[in-house]
């Protein structure tokens, strides 16, 4: 080889080494924390599905037509006198209905209701397993006092090293796309270093698209918090919809109080949401709040939301298919992409499986370093020490 060629080869090698060093140092010092976040996210993405597996009472097993929402509300009010239902939530057809309610003492509670029979299958406190997993993964259970929780920042800042690992990983793994053309090959039995190395490269190549989505949506979460906490002059959320006073009935003396007709309101909302599977019904906590029905509708990756006056069944407001201000729309779609709830069970399974691959990537990266770099460093240090002794 010519002198010129050798120099180019060495320059390329040291550049490659530099990229690899960056790739390692972006993830290694934080791998334990990063692994925890990836693992909790993997669990959280299917938290209701884990409940479905572990607990038959959260399943929607019974055959038959679903009861109207008012029957579900009545079931809660019978079971807990004075309880006022705030949300009725049904994420998937195979899940029962989750109700969140306010107790007369000011606290909150939750319950699962069989959508066909109306029986309350389980009662809980204010915090459910899915909420717990979300809080643990999203903000380390840190409190929200004013603005975004410090835990939110502590978690979302990981998007930066993750993006860095992704980019440096792509650069380091020459022609990674070759693995797509053949069956996954992992050398087992040839030593830990080769096993973890193969696993890491394979996982990285196949999960590339997923890591790009997770890291960039997490980066948005960081941006979103900064925009809010630093009072950026953009609308971060929609102003709450209120019913005008003149659209409310007035109670006549001696007559019973006006009653909200939940079923009529929900039917009116569904008439505007063709083909939508409503996943959430928000009930009013005072006379001026409308009934809000929300679900995935016509446009993929966006929620449709309709607000209805429960006393007149008139539509007060509707937001269909991402008809929102830009930042609000972006925030909505970023969250949906991050948690993978836009395509029912198949997409959730994909998100969970690739979340597992991502978590394994973080872990295997650490194992490679332990088996290769650390060993090598210890050996080099030992041999240097021996030289010094004998010198």
């Amino acid at each position, binding site marked *: 080889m010519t002198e010129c060629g050798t120099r180019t080869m060495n320059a390329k090698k040291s550049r490659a080494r530099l990229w690899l060093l960056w790739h390692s140092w972006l993830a290694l*010092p934080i791998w334990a*924390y990063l692994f*925890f976040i990836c693992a909790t996210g993997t669990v959280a993405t299917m938290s209701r599905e884990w409940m479905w597996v572990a607990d038959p009472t959260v399943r929607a097993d019974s055959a038959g037509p679903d009861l109207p929402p008012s029957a579900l509300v009545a079931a809660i009010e019978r079971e807990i006198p004075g309880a006022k239902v705030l949300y009725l939530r049904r994420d998937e057809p195979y899940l029962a209905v989750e109700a969140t309610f306010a107790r007369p*003492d000011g606290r909150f509670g939750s319950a699962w209701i069989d959508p066909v029979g109306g029986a309350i299958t389980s009662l809980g406190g204010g915090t459910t397993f899915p909420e*717990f997993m979300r809080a643990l993964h999203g903000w380390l259970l840190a409190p929200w*006092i004013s603005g975004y929780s410090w835990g939110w920042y*502590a978690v979302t800042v990981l998007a930066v090293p993750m993006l860095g690992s992704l980019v440096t990983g792509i650069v380091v793994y020459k022609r990674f796309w070759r693995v797509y053309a053949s069956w996954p090959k992992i050398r087992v039995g040839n030593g830990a270093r080769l096993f973890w190395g193969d696993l890491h490269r394979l996982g990285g190549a196949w999960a590339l698209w997923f890591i790009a989505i997770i890291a960039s949506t997490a980066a948005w979460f960081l941006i979103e918090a900064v925009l809010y906490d630093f009072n950026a002059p953009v609308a971060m959320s929609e102003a709450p919809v209120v019913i005008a006073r003149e659209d409310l009935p007035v109670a006549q003396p001696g007559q019973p*109080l006006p009653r909200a007709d939940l079923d009529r309101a929900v039917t009116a909302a569904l008439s505007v949401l063709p083909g939508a599977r409503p996943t959430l019904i928000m009930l009013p906590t005072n006379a001026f709040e409308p009934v809000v029905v929300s679900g995935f509708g016509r446009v993929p990756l966006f929620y449709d939301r309709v607000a209805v006056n429960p006393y007149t069944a008139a539509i007060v407001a509707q937001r269909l298919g991402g008809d929102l201000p830009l930042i609000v729309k972006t925030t909505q779609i970023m969250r949906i992409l991050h948690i993978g709830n836009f395509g029912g069970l198949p997409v959730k399974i994909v998100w969970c499986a690739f979340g597992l691959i991502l978590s394994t990537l973080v872990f295997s990266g650490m194992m490679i370093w332990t088996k290769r770099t*650390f060993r090598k460093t210890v050996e080099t240090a030992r041999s240097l020490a021996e030289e010094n002794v004998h010198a």
Partner: protein
Amino acid sequence: MLSVWHRGKFYLSALMLIAPLSVVQNYFATSEMVAPSARSLPERAVGPWRATLAEAIPGPPYRGPAGERMKDFAVSFRPEDAAGIRGAFLRVGKPRNLRTAGALAHGSPYRAHAHVPMPENLTGGEELWLTVEGWDGQTHQVVWPLADVMSSP
């Protein structure tokens, strides 16, 4: 000693888990709405009902998304009264009319909270006005000295 550091230094980031571990026991324990240090005032009559006012979160006012100073207050009603109440509004200073009655309290019919705009500088003489509207269209008001329900200015 050095090898312990080299072996274990990359596990240090697991210390981040101290944060959730320290609160996880409390997390499921209660859905208590009132922090122990939050100011809470005795129940008072407002029209035919009775209301209890409290700080929702102790501490100084925070900045809302548009930079405005805000503080959250909680209004509790007796369970038997809640059905007759259309809504409760909280405002610093006497409302001129019903349309400017203040921030609508929401979240629960029994213990609603309102995000109340605060003046930039508090003199200590401000009043917090609660306007409660019934289903008969009648409104009733009660007023507290703002300083009594603020744990810090």
